[in-house]
């Protein structure tokens, strides 16, 4: 009995030392990681809607989105940006989307995905993301579903996920703004 207590105690000591080191390193790296993520988000937003100032808003449903206003005239709303997310073929696909005042897509950027390399992962290629430009709500479906988004070959699920998640998010933002 005493022997087993001793074993347990030794293991405890190892774990305490290990978690102490990890906790210390976490306090060092967590702010750097958070700052980098925030900076990336700012840069992506600026690329989607240039020459704009962004103000964060939280919808009644809990989602956040950004209202882009012209730098020269802060009353002029240029558009909105938000992150659309939905489960793809293997895990969540997150897409940063910029739309204009009429909710026509200005540009999209897939910021997080873990789809199959060679198939679904091709959604990060510019040729796929470019085609979303200028589409509005009725067209935001893959061609198989009657929309104007040409699916990636062999990755209809990924393409559909991105198109549908953008459409859903646009509806959510519209609903929130309409409620004013």
């Amino acid at each position, binding site marked *: 009995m005493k022997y087993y207590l001793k074993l347990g105690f030794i293991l405890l000591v190892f774990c305490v030392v290990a978690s102490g080191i990890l906790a210390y*390193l976490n306090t060092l790296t967590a702010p750097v*990681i958070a700052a980098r993520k925030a900076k990336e988000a700012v840069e992506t937003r600026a690329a989607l809607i240039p020459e704009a100032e962004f103000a964060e808003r939280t919808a009644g449903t809990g989602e956040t989105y950004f209202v882009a206003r012209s730098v020269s005239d802060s009353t002029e709303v240029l558009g909105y940006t938000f992150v659309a997310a939905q489960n793809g073929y293997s895990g969540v696909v997150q897409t940063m989307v910029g739309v204009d005042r009429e909710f026509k897509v200005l540009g999209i950027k897939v910021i997080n995905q873990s789809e199959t390399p060679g198939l679904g992962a091709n959604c990060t290629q510019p040729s796929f993301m470019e085609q979303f430009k200028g589409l509005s709500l009725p067209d935001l479906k893959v061609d198989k579903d009657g929309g104007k988004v040409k699916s990636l070959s062999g990755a209809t699920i990924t393409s559909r996920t991105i198109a549908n998640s953008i459409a859903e998010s646009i509806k959510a933002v519209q609903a929130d703004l309409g409620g004013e």
Partner: protein
Amino acid sequence: MTFSKELTKGFIKDNPIFILVLGLCPTLAVTTSVVNGLGMGFAATFVLLCSNIIVSMIKGITPSKIRIPVYIVVIASFVTIVDMVMGAYLPGLHKSLGLFIPLIVVNCIILGRAEAFASKNNVLMSIADAIGMGLGFTLSLVVIATVREILGAGTWLGFRVTPLTYDPMLIAILAPGAFITLGFLMALINMVKEKK
């Protein structure tokens, strides 16, 4: 055994993937591109080096009954350190490897070397073993990834190496391609070994 012998045995003679057949799970998963292979190889080498040093340092005070949980704690801690540091300072690499880093914990090369080597040898020899095994692992990953990336994407390290008319053989970078490539390479190595 001398230092240099311990250092070089991991490259060919005791190559962790092709000869010891350890750590196949991360091998199959990350070798879709040479960049991923290199990143995974160096990350695993770093963890292996740290864990071998610590394990050989604490071999005197670790009761043999609880040595496996102790090794796992040591390895898991270093993996978490790599994950956090990479996430903070090497974001590009972290993005493509993010999914695989936690896999290093269960990479049997690391626990295997802790158990088979570091727990029985001094720190210096354990360092040699870790570097040799780590680089051998990296080398093997690069070899497999080279075959898969050239066949499956027509590129090497991201640069196009095949003529534009070449239509990439997609299966090479999908899961079956990993098994097929590994099988052929292993057969090739066995053939060379038997001829000797």
